[in-house]
């Protein structure tokens, strides 16, 4: 395991981060920083107790960004943050976790394995705090300024009215960086913060290509998969709207057993996922130009 420290003004210190009005004096690293800070980076942040929709969007956006060569930056918290890291890892991409505690603390404890995978996947776990510093709520806003500072753009997936992710967005705006917000239902408390961001002028995120276009990058071509007829039919239905198994049985006209098999086929192909009994397509459908 490689550990390192970058000093403000010293070699290797990320130039984007130096644009903050109070950049961290030192940046502690876990992992090998080899060229990571020269690559385009995008923050994907949001609520801890996110919805299945938020989790899915975070994972998909992160996967597609990472697939296009973007470094996905997030805070390794529960919910959206963790999904963003996982999505990037799923694409075999690089991801960067910014902690609000020492890099030797496994916080949250359940993400110890995730941190290990991030570093193993040529990513980094970074923090401005000395090793051994305990996590504390008042350190998280400061951590969010590092997330925004390291990223060319920030995507807020889900946020309540008063959410730490909005602090990240504020820092990004201060730096003149692009902010994207994922639109949500106007009745959902979890989308109140993101919808408000959009009203205030943040770019609504309708697909990963919005972010990539802002960075001047191309989306990686998703590999095409051979699907059985049943799976293709179910995928078409899921592309319209997420649904439960029994609704799909009725709308597809297929037997319950065939729908179950089709859903597993789609899941194994990475095209659909399930949470709380609701299945949804994982890819954001192409928009008509």
């Amino acid at each position, binding site marked *: 395991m490689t550990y390192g420290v970058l000093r403000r003004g010293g070699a290797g210190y990320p130039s984007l981060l130096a644009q903050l009005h109070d950049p961290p004096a030192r940046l502690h690293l876990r992992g090998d920083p080899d060229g990571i800070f020269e690559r385009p980076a995008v923050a994907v942040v949001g609520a801890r107790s996110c919805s299945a929709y938020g989790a899915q969007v975070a994972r998909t956006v992160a996967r597609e960004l990472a697939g296009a060569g973007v470094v996905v930056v997030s805070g390794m918290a529960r919910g959206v943050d963790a999904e963003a890291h996982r999505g990037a890892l799923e694409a075999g991409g690089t991801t960067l976790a910014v902690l609000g505690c020492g890099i030797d603390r496994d916080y949250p404890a359940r993400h110890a394995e995730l941190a290990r995978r991030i570093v193993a996947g040529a990513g980094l776990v970074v923090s401005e705090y000395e090793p051994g510093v305990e996590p504390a709520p008042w350190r998280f806003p400061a951590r969010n300024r590092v997330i925004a500072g390291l990223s060319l753009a920030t995507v807020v997936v889900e946020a309540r009215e008063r959410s730490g992710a909005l602090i990240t967005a504020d820092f990004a705006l201060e730096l003149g960086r692009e902010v994207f917000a994922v639109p949500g239902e106007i009745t959902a408390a979890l989308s109140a913060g993101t919808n408000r961001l959009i009203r205030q002028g943040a770019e609504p995120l309708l697909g990963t290509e919005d972010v990539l276009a802002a960075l001047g990058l191309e989306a990686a071509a998703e590999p095409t998969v051979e699907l059985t007829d049943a799976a293709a039919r179910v995928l078409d239905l899921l592309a319209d709207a997420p649904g439960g198994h*029994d609704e799909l049985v009725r709308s597809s006209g297929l037997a*319950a*057993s065939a*729908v179950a*098999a089709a*859903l*597993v086929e789609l899941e194994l192909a990475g095209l659909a996922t399930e949470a709380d*009994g*609701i299945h949804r397509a994982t890819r954001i459908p192409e928009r008509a130009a």
Partner: protein
Amino acid sequence: MLARATTHALVGLEARSIEVEAHLQRGVPGFAIVGLPDKGVQEAKERVRSGIASAELEWPMRRITVNLAPADLRKEGSGFDLPIALAILGASQQIPLDMLAEHAALGELALDGRIRPVPGAIVAAEAARRTGLAKLLCAAESAPEAALAGIEPIPVRHLAEAGAYLRGRHEPEPVGEPPPYSGPPPPDLRDVRGQERARRALEIAAAGRHNLLLGGPPGTGKTMLARRLPGILPPLTREEALEVTRIHSVAGALPAGQPLVAYPPFRAPHHTASTPAIVGGGPGPRPGEATLAHRGVLLLDELGEFSRPSLEALRQPLEDGLVAIARIGGRHVFPARFLLVGTMNLCPCGARGDPGVECSCSPARIAAYRQKLSRALLDRFDLVLTVPRARSQEVAGAPGELSSAVAERVVAADRRLRERPPLIGEAAGTVLGRAVDRLGLSARGHARIARVAATIGALAEVDEVLPEHMAEALSYRSPSELAVAA
């Protein structure tokens, strides 16, 4: 004067032969029962005294000692009343001893001399047959049950009738094989509207005897579905029915007038039930719910609310199909091969998974709720699925397929699984291999899914499991929200 009657005492699910000796001596009139009687047997004194008086027989004004041999076995229950009364009547020469010696006797006495049924008649009758006694004097209600054991039951309604019979002055009506069960059948799957996935899972569970875990918000019909499982299980063979009847007889759970259990039993203990109530126990010991559900279905509604020791105690029956209870007096083994159905909410408040309500549970509370179920227990569930809330058009929709139609497929698949179970084909193996890589299946989860796939193949009447069967089997693996990586 000394007289002997024979009866049987229940020890677990077995009956031990007990000799009831009555000895009349000169001396101050009195009545003592010895031979390790419990409180219920001690109280027989009052019932026997009143019963004999009510039958207009004579209570001997002697010093009466009744001994229950073997004297080192604890005697429980009220079934000793009739044999004690008969032994006293024999000792006072009111009934012929040679007739008494040809019969076993079992029954409780009412104060007016009527004879009441007691639990375990079939087990006592079998034990009587084994000890070479061909006739059992018992309550009229117990007679059909005793007839199942291949013994001649002598139904007696009253102690006076028993006395008259033994003196050759009363001919009891013969008791044949009991009539087949004619009570209401188990609830039918027809009542379940929509719920295609859950119906399919029930069919697979019934065909392959796979334990089933139903998750979902309250009021979505999880319990209703589980109650319909006995109606689609393969019917009990005669041997199995007798086995279940014995257990239910000992537990006193047989419905009146229907001695032979016709359908696989269904048991649904409440989550406040104690561990002995669930797996069996007590000084006796007595069978618990797990044994009463033998060859049937055990439903644990709100699995997470059961005490952890109760749930852990179920691991032995789930693994071995029996419950072993160790006592100083010996080890008792109760059969307990049941299909386990568990239901649980997705979170403590129950709102999770219900689109209409917002869940108020913190992630820490949800984690604590789910951690209550040990991995070892969750691993015993082959089929895990979420039952969604039915929408209004479903509730008003057409009735579902009849249980009898589903049962036909289940019976055919059950036979196929026993005779020539489908093998995992190469293509199906590839699907499973990809799932292992992508979903991180454990070796145990791997075996479990292969087992479910074989059942699905048997339902599809194929000799080789196809990829779609394997894919469907994978769809019943523990979903992430129940925090059970298969």
